[in-house]
Structure formats: C-alpha cells, structure tokens
C-alpha cells in the first residue's frame, strides 16, 4: 500500500462521492461540500502524481468491464506529471468554486441561480475524474473512453450558463463539433496503430512500433496529432478555444485552460516519444515545432489586441501551448538528430512550462472570474480602478500577470529561459535544418515574450489600475473568502514555482530524461539551476532565487539612498496635472483598444482589423462634431480562410440531404432495406 496507491484510491473515492454529493446534498450546502470534495480529490491526485514522478509506478486492470475490452490503467512518471498538475489545479479551483458557484457566475445581469444547480455540481467532479483518468489510461480503448468522458463532461460545463447568454450556445456548438472531430482523428490513428499490434494495450503498441512502416507510423502520428492538437488549441485547430473559454464559468475555464488542454500535449508526447518510440522522422517534429511557433505568435497577437478579458486569457493559453509544443518539437527534433541530452533539456523545459502555465493560468482565470462576477463586465474598456475595491484580486492578478509575461521574478521566465537555452545549444548539433529552423524558433519565442509583456501590461494596467471606467467597476468589491483562498492557493503555487523551481525541476528533468531515454538534463547546485551539456559539462546556469534577492536588495538600496539624500519634506497630495483645464475624467484615459492600437497597426498586414468610425455633426454646421464613435473588430483570418469554406460545404450537404427526407415512413424504411441489401451484395461479391 504505497503513497501512490493510497493517493489514487482516495482520489477515485472522493471524486465519486463528490459527484454523488452534487446530486444529493441540498442547495444550501451543495457548493461547500462539492468544493471540499474536489479539493480532497485534487490533493490526493497531486500526492499520487508526485509519488509517480519519483519513480513509483503501478498498474490496474478491470478485465471485462465492457463487452469488447477491459479497462487498463498504468501510472508511470510521465502520467504522474499530468496527474499532479490536474490535481493541483483542482485543489485551487475546488476551493474557489465554493464561493464562486454561489454567486451569479459570469452572467451579465446579477440574477441568481445556474452554477450551483444539481447538474453542474455533479458533473464537475466527473470532469475532474475523467481528466485524472486520461493520463493513466494504458490501452487504446481505455484512453478513448476517458477522453470521450472528459469531452462530454467539459461540454456540459461549458454550456452551463446557456440560459443566461445566447452566445454560450454557439460556443458550445463549436466546442462539441471540434472536440468530437478530434476524437475521431485519435480513434483513426490509434486503431490503425492497434491494428498492427496484438491487442490495444500500450505495451503491445510499444512492441509493435518498430514493425510499422514509416508511412503507417506517420499516419498514426499525424492523425493522433490532429486530435490531440485540437484539444491543445493549436492553430489551425484552435477555433473552439477562444470561444469556449470566455463563455464557460470561470472555474470551469480555469480547469479547462490549466488542466484539460495539457492532455493534448500529453497525447502528443505519449504517442510520439513513448508508443512510437524512436521510429520518429525529423519532419514530424519540425511540423510540431512549426505549428507550435505559429500558435504561439498567433495566440499572443490575438491576445495583445483583444479587449475581452477572458477571451484574452484563452488566446494566451493557445500561445503557451504553442511554446510548450515548440519545446516538444525541439525535443523530438534533437532526438532524431541523435543528441538525447538536448532532447531531454527541451522536453524538461516544455514540461516545466506546462506546470508554470497551469499555475498562473489558474490564478489568472480565477481572479478574472472574480472581476467579471463583481462587475458583470468582461470588456477591459469597461473596467479599471479595481485596485481600490478589490485589492486582493488585483494583487493576485498582478502575480499571475508577472508570471505570464516571462519576466523575472516570474514563473514563466525560468521555463522560457530553459527553452531558449535548449534551442541555442541545439544549433551545432542539428545540421542545416537546425541552422534554418532554430533561429526562427528563437525569434518566435522572443516575439511571443515581447507581445506577452504588452498583453499583460494592458490586462493589468488597463483592467485594474487608473480610474474606473464604469460605475460597476467603481463599486466592485471582493467576493467571499473561499474565492480569495482559492486564488491564494494558486498564487502561492505561482510564487513557489517562480522562486524555487529548483524543487520541482530535478524531478521533471528526470521524467523528461526517462521519456527520451537520456540522463537528467539539469543539475541543482544549491540555489542554482545548472544545465548539463554533453560530457556532463555545465553550459549555463540560472538562479531565480538569487536574482529575486538581488532585486530586493537593489530596491532597499535605492530606497535607502533616496531617503538619505532627499531633504525631509512632507509629501504633498496634488491633483493630477490636467494642463490647467478641468479635472480629467475616466473618458480621457487610454482604453485597452487605444493601448493596443499601435501594435494592431504594426501587425495590420497579419491581422487585417476592420475599423468603422462614424462621426455625427451638429445640424448647424458640419464642422462642429457632436460625437465620434470608433469600433474595431479583428476577425480571425485563419477561420475565415479555413473554416468558412468547410462550413459552407457541410451546409450544402445538409441541404442536399433534406431532399431525401420527405417525411414518408415507407421511404425511411426503404433506405434501411436498400442499404442492407447493398451490403449483402457487397459481401457476396467480395467473398
């Protein structure tokens, strides 16, 4: 009875009990019980995951649960990473949900009801359980089953608020279609794979991998890649993500954005590195890397010019998944080039960024949820000045924004540093392809980092600082304590990851090393992260804690110096400098739209924003302007080019199909009959 077994058992038990509780407990206590249950489930899963990462592994089989196949679960270090992430996120989100689900949710009006309904509260634990089950699934059937369960439960949660906002319904439709298509792709890929193996268990697949022809292997990789990539929100399969995330309740958005999308990455890593082993060709991984770079830049561009608070965070999820896939692709690429140490380093960077992203995205989405719940506004142009009414939430979002913008002392800085180190040291190892791809990859990462800075300066500065732009923003107050506690948990995780990545990095490094079949890529030396190059030489080192301490000392020095030199005059409050005119009103502030305007003009060739300016004049003279109204829309060009034609085609098919449906029962029965005969004939002919 190891910690691993205990953790898994508790997680399963608590999760199922919580689901029941969601159904049975009366409304007053429901969210509390469910939230506590989720927290316990998450904590147990976190422990189990950590135990698994440190090398313990276990297998469970439920032989013939279903007619066709039994369920098969195996917990190995790689699965442990994702167990731990999902568990950690669940703890924070569970506690947060206690208060959040009582509130009006993200509804525009402050009307009550919805999120603490029986359905939502019962499905939430199931969703978590499904997400915990996916990484430990050890056979094709099990994986597909858990995957589908996860997809369905998340879909139900996304449309939880469809009564309040019609937009939710369309978002749900997008999400349903794309996630099901993704499932089909995975199904195809894995069943082709399983067709070449003795049975559907991953062990059999591993054994069969070397026997695959390159074409088949490529088919498997690409098909599953499409499925998993769509779940990770990778361009061009991202269309659902910026729709579903903003429309889902914020605790669900946090779960999806911080835990669920990771499983897409999990799938790619599992299939590419583990199941297909070293049959991988370089172009697979260059494809992954390229799509990752594309998603990173595209996502952060949309985020940088967007003004919808939660949509912006969703786009930033696309960006971070892109960065992670850059790491994964680089790892595979180095692996095919034969430099396993570098591959381990790149994969470790990707996994670390996965952990960091989970932490700060949970924090960002929960605090954004509090803001939206308190103000009922989700447009940055209508927020501002929240630091007076909601100081704790402001601080929380500030920490998250610092972590997300890859600046020291933030969490993402460490992982992006590792990623850049891996890319830079890859140059000598990978020949001409590397010499052409890696600089561009570095440039992509760098551009992403720069735009991320702009994005979160906008989100934090415009959203929380300065003067409130609407009465709702002015009168906003903090939510219940449980929400603050939930944010606090995520915040503490962010700070810990930022200051002491040395605690988690060795484990993650060894997991990555084991996945690609190399040694530990990083060595911890005191407070310092040291990169282990080939021949075990140190090729680079970073110490986030030292850096932060140095910053603190610097601040103290500056303060002391200023105090020492400045003559003691009492500070005086003064009205803002308004050029001597009347007082400045909130309408004179920069809005998110105007803040992003230069970037939008710089990247206009890419974004093709649509503006319309309508100026209305006074009747007396057309030289006297009465009002000027400026609106900007940034259509998703990839959607325009890629999805609209497909949708039109599907619609056309549908129209054609309606001709067959005349409503006569005989005809419908006839269809069945004809098909049956046709099949029989086919059988005869082919045999």
């Amino acid at each position, binding site marked *: 009875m190891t910690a691993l077994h205990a953790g898994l058992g508790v997680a399963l038990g608590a999760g199922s009990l919580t689901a029941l509780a969601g159904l049975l407990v009366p409304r007053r206590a429901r969210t509390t019980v469910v939230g506590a249950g989720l927290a316990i489930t998450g904590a147990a899963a976190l422990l189990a995951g950590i135990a698994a990462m440190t090398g313990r592994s276990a297998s469970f089989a439920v032989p013939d649960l279903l007619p066709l196949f039994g369920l098969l679960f195996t917990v190995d270090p790689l699965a442990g990473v994702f167990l731990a992430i999902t568990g950690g996120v669940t703890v924070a989100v569970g506690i947060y949900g206690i208060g959040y689900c009582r509130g009006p949710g993200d509804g525009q009006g402050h009307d009550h009801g919805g999120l603490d309904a029986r359905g939502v509260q019962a499905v939430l634990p199931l969703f978590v359980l499904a997400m915990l089950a996916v990484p430990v699934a050890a056979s094709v059937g099990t994986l597909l089953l858990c995957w589908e369960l996860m997809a369905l439960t998340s879909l139900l949660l996304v449309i939880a608020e469809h009564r309040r906002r019609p937009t939710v319904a369309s978002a749900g439709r997008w999400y349903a279609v794309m996630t099901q298509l993704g499932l089909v792709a995975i199904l195809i890929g894995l069943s082709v794979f399983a067709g070449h193996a003795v049975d559907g268990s991953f062990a059999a697949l591993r054994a069969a991998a070397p026997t695959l022809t390159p074409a088949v292997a490529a088919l498997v990789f690409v098909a599953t890649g499409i499925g998993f990539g769509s779940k990770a929100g990778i361009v061009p399969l991202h269309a659902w993500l910026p729709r579903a995330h903003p429309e889902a309740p914020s605790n669900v958005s946090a779960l999806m954005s911080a835990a669920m999308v990771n499983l897409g990455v999990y799938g790619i890593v599992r299939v590419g590195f583990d199941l297909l082993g070293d049959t991988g060709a370089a172009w697979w991984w260059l494809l992954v890397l390229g799509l990752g770079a594309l998603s990173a830049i595209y996502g952060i561009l949309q985020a*940088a010019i967007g003004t919808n608070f939660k949509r912006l965070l969703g786009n930033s999820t696309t960006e971070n998944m892109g960065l992670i896939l850059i790491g994964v692709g680089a790892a595979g690429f180095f692996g095919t080039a034969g430099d396993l140490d570098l591959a381990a380093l790149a994969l470790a960077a990707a996994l670390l960024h996965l952990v960091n992203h989970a932490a700060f995205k949970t924090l960002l989405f929960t605090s954004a949820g509090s803001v939206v719940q308190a103000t009922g506004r989700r447009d940055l142009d209508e927020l501002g000045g929240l630091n007076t009414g909601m100081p704790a939430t402001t601080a929380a979002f500030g920490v998250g924004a610092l972590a997300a913008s890859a600046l020291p002392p933030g969490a993402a800085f460490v992982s992006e540093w590792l990623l850049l180190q891996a890319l830079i040291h890859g140059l000598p190892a990978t020949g001409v392809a590397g*010499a052409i791809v890696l600089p561009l990859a570095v440039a992509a990462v760098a551009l992403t980092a720069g735009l991320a800075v702009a994005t979160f300066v906008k989100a934090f500065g415009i959203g929380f600082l300065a003067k409130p732009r609407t009465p709702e923003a002015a009168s906003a107050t903090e939510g219940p304590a449980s929400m603050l506690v939930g944010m606090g948990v995520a915040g503490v995780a962010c700070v810990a990851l930022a200051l002491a990545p040395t605690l988690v990095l060795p484990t993650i490094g060894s997991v990555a090393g084991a996945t690609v079949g190399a040694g530990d890529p990083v060595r911890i030396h005191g407070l310092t992260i040291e990169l282990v190059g080939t021949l075990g030489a140190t090729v680079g080192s970073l110490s986030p804690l030292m*850096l932060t301490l140095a910053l603190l000392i610097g601040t103290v020095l500056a303060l002391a110096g200023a105090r020492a030199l400045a003559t003691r005059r009492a*500070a005086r409050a003064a009205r*803002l400098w308004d050029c001597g005119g009347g007082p*400045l009103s909130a309408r004179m*502030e920069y809005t998110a739209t105007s803040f992003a305007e230069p970037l939008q003009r710089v990247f206009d060739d890419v974004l093709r924003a649509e503006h319309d300016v309508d100026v209305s004049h006074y009747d007396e003279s057309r030289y006297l302007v009465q009002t000027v109204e400026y609106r900007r829309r940034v259509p998703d060009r990839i959607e325009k080019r890629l999805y609209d034609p497909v949708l039109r085609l599907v619609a056309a098919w549908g129209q054609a199909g309606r001709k067959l449906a005349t409503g006569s029962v005989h005809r419908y029965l006839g269809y069945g009959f004809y098909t049956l005969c046709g099949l029989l004939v086919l059988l005869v002919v082919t045999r």
Partner: protein
Amino acid sequence: MTGLVVVVQLLVVVALSPLLIGMMRQVRARMEGRVGPGIGQPWRDLRKLMRKQPITPDGTSVVFRTAPLVLVATCLVVAAVAPLVSTAALLDPVSDLFAVVALLTLGTVTLALAGIDTGTAFGGLGASRETTIVALVEPTLLVAIFALSVPVGSTNLGAIVGATLADPAQVLSPVSLLAAAALVVVIIAETGRLPVDNPSTHLELTMVHEAMILEYAGPDLALVELAASMRLSLFLGLLANLFLPWGIATGGDPLLIGLAVPALVVKVAALGALLAAAEVFLAKLRLFRVPELLAGSFVMGLLAVGASYFLA
C-alpha cells in the same frame, strides 16, 4: 575579491552615468554652436530634485510610488552582475544575457504600469508606445544574443567576454559585426534615443519615455532620471565589452580592476560621444516607421546567426 568588483562597478555606474548624459548633451551643444551647461549639469539637476518636495498625485496607487525604486533596482542589479570592469561576477548564475535583458525589460514595464496608473491620457500614450517598442525590440535582441552565444556555447556574459578576449580575431568576423550592428539599433530603441524617441522634446504628442514620467516630481523624478542614465551607460558598457573587451580585468585583482575602470570609462565615453554626434544628423522617425528600423536590425541578427553556423 569579487565583492570588490561588485562595489566598484556599482560606484562607477551610479557615479558616472549622469556625467555620461552630461557629456553627450555637451557634445550636442557644441555641435549646435552652443556653449552647453557643462557635463556636471545632470548631477546638479539630480541634487536639486532630491531637495524638492515629493508629490503624490490624486488617485495614484502603490504601483506609481514604487515604480522608480524597482526601476533603479533593476539597473543596480545589472550593474552589479554585468562584466563591466571584470569578467569575474559575484552572482555568476544571474550574469546571464537573458536574465540581464529581462531585468531591464522589467524596469520598462514597471514604468509603463506607473504611466497607466496615473490615469492621464499622456501616461497611457507613453505606456502604449513604450510597450509596443519593447515588444518589437525583444526578437531582435534575443536573436543577436543567440548569434553572440553560439560561438561560445553559453549565454553567460562573463564567458562570452572571456572568449572574445581569448580570440581577438572573432571581433572582425561577420558574426560579431552583424550582431553589433543589430545591437546598436536595439540599444537606441531601448534607451529612447533618436531616431526612435527624442529625449529632449517638450511636445507631449511626440513623447515616448517622457510621457510616462510627466507626473513624477522631486526625488521620484530624480530616481527615474538616474535610472534612465544608468540604463544608457549599462547598455553602452555591455556593447563595449562584448565587442571590444580589452582592458577588462579577468579576476578580482585590485590592480587590474584599477586599470579596467579607466578603460571602461574611455570606451563608454567614446561610444556616447559617437551616439550624440550621430544624433545631430538624425530626425525622429514616425512611430510606425520604427518597425522598419527594428526589422532591419532583426534581419542583421538573423544573418549573424546564419553566419555563425555556416561560416564556422
């Protein structure tokens, strides 16, 4: 002995940065036929600002008040860890090119947030422009760093400088020349000099850096001004030592350090004078022509990387 290095570097940077600004203004004044206020003027300004009364504008939050401190702190940390007078840094794990760049960016970001925090139109304007420029500078900067660190196999500043010292011929290679060209443009953009930003403009609508600090007065303003001058001298010092490292000490030997300080001063002063003289011939670019400038330097950085691989 590295403690000595840190102390010396901090003292040199803090004490001489305003003089660098004064020297550059003096060069400009002389080329305009003026006499100029003398290179000590920035220090006089700082001394006076320190004696003035601090002002907290209505509606500004803690962000606005702490930004100058953080800004100065970032500069101090960089001044402590960068190889300016000696390659032996006290905090070797912090003396990493990415870390240094990220620290300086952090300073810019805090100032931008402070600009937004005031809630004035000009503050937001400056912040918006500054963040735009930062976002576009980042790729160029990191690609140039890439080019510099590939031949050395490390992004540690000390290692890069040491490698150049060991093999002086590197300086004339296309790699370092292209990287240097790229970095010069980046530095001009990062420190808000012409043609990207006009440090001596009085017209709010043409401001980038100035617009963010319009609300600061007294000691806060002094800190911001000091930090601005420190940024400039740090960037120039890094540029000088990355490409012309001669004179820098390799250890903590007091004698060598004593020799390294004047060498650094001469190099930075020369670069500063060159920059100031060049600015006389330049006019400020439109904000939307700046991307062209940065794209050019980005391409140079990329070519440098290519050269570092293909000509190796």
